[in-house]
């Protein structure tokens, strides 16, 4: 995971130094804020500003950012589709069979899409600027998370590439056997279940052995010292101020320079 992050990073920014807990809690606050925002104009500015922050402060190479942004836009558009196509409203723009596009539903659809985008932009910023080990260390040190949970997560995450590799191998072995047997053994539900079972049983066995190994290394859930020191620094305040400014700016500009006449998507 870390190698991958190093490959796509161009430079480090101050957000790298912000405590993971600050970033995650800000993420939760953003979620609540976005759910409570109903003015599409304000939300538009917020999403644009968040995109700018992602581009400038994630430190990720533009080439990769472009791919990420494209994916978000496509997924966002998809998620808004049902609202656009079937939403209720008075001003009809288009009608075909069950499909009934109204101005209200169009605005609402776009609004829902911008919500998703704002959260996705912020989420990527967090992922691109945070090392996973730091997340768990600061959860243990600052928030008192029990070590057994933190280390289980770190150890299990180490296994994800192994699980993925095993899945690739599994597909190769299926390719070898598939022509030799009836396809009801490989396709559909049965194929899905046998795949899941093989992956799960291998992983459970490995997790069990790892649990034994960790406790043999005298791991217990009690007090311990820490290899990494995580603490809150002035960067955390800088980050919070930046986010406040962004939210405030989008509120003000959204109310002052309205792009569309609708101020409430409901």
């Amino acid at each position, binding site marked *: 995971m870390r190698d991958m992050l190093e490959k796509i990073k161009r430079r480090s920014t101050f957000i790298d130094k912000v405590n993971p807990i600050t970033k995650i809690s800000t993420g939760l606050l953003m979620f609540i804020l976005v759910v409570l925002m109903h003015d599409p104009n304000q939300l538009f500015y917020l999403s644009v500003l968040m995109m700018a922050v992602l581009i400038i402060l994630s430190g990720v190479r533009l080439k990769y950012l472009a791919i990420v942004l494209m994916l978000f836009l496509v997924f966002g558009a*998809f998620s808004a589709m*049902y609202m656009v196509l079937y939403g209720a409203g008075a001003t009809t723009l288009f009608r075909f069979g069950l499909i009934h596009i109204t101005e209200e539903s169009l605005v609402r659809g776009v609004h829902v899409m911008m919500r998703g985008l704002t*959260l996705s932009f912020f*989420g990527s910023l967090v992922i691109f600027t945070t090392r996973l080990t730091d997340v768990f260390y600061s959860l243990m040190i600052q928030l008192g998370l029990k070590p057994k949970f933190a280390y*289980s997560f770190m150890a299990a995450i180490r296994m994800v590439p192994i699980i993925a590799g095993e899945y690739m191998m599994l597909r190769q072995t299926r390719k070898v056997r598939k022509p030799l047997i009836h396809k009801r053994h490989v396709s559909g539900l049965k194929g899905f279940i046998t795949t*899941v079972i093989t992956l799960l049983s291998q992983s459970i066995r*490995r997790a*069990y052995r790892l649990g034994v190994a960790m406790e043999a290394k005298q791991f217990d859930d009690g007090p311990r010292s820490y290899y990494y020191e995580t603490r809150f620094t002035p960067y955390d305040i800088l980050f919070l101020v930046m986010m406040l400014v962004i939210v405030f700016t989008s509120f003000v500009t959204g109310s002052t320079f309205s792009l569309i006449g609708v101020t409430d998507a409901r």
Partner: protein
Amino acid sequence: MERKRGLTLTDVLITVVIGLVFAVIYSIWGAVYTVLQPLGLHLNELVYGMWFIAAVVAVLILRKPGVAILAEFAAGAGETIVTLQFDAFLMVYALLQGLAVEIVFAFTKYESTRMMTAVWAGIAAALITLPLDWFYGYLAEVAAWNIILMFTLRIISGALIAGVLAHLIYQALRETGVLKFVGSRNMKHHEGL
């Protein structure tokens, strides 16, 4: 030797790993879900139950309190890592769905591994996030027939995928022999030594 209370390190590790295996599956499933979405007839809801299958499978395997929430959280967190996208929305949903499964199994004191229990857990998990969807997605503004269709399909999906399919996976997993050393078991097994 007395039975260990609560979750041991091995329990936690196994739960988290189960969550992560499903995270990989969820990420692939996400593509199916997204492709079905624009059809607008809520066909995507038919596969919705997949999102909380991890919780049901894990709690069937370990039969201990906290496992369902932890597994679903791990699956959500794992999806975050696989898709390189920290999604607060997804985490909140994961926790709620885990909680719903947890509640259903708590009613059986974590003793039941029957298929019906799994089905009820699947339905509960399908229902628990509907209020949030209502609010977040402005569902009140969507045509009524469309909403009813959506709810119905989601409940069916919860029952079939998170209930029946999860139970099939649990049964098949038990046959592999991997569960012999795993999870809650009674104290009597020291007898006769």
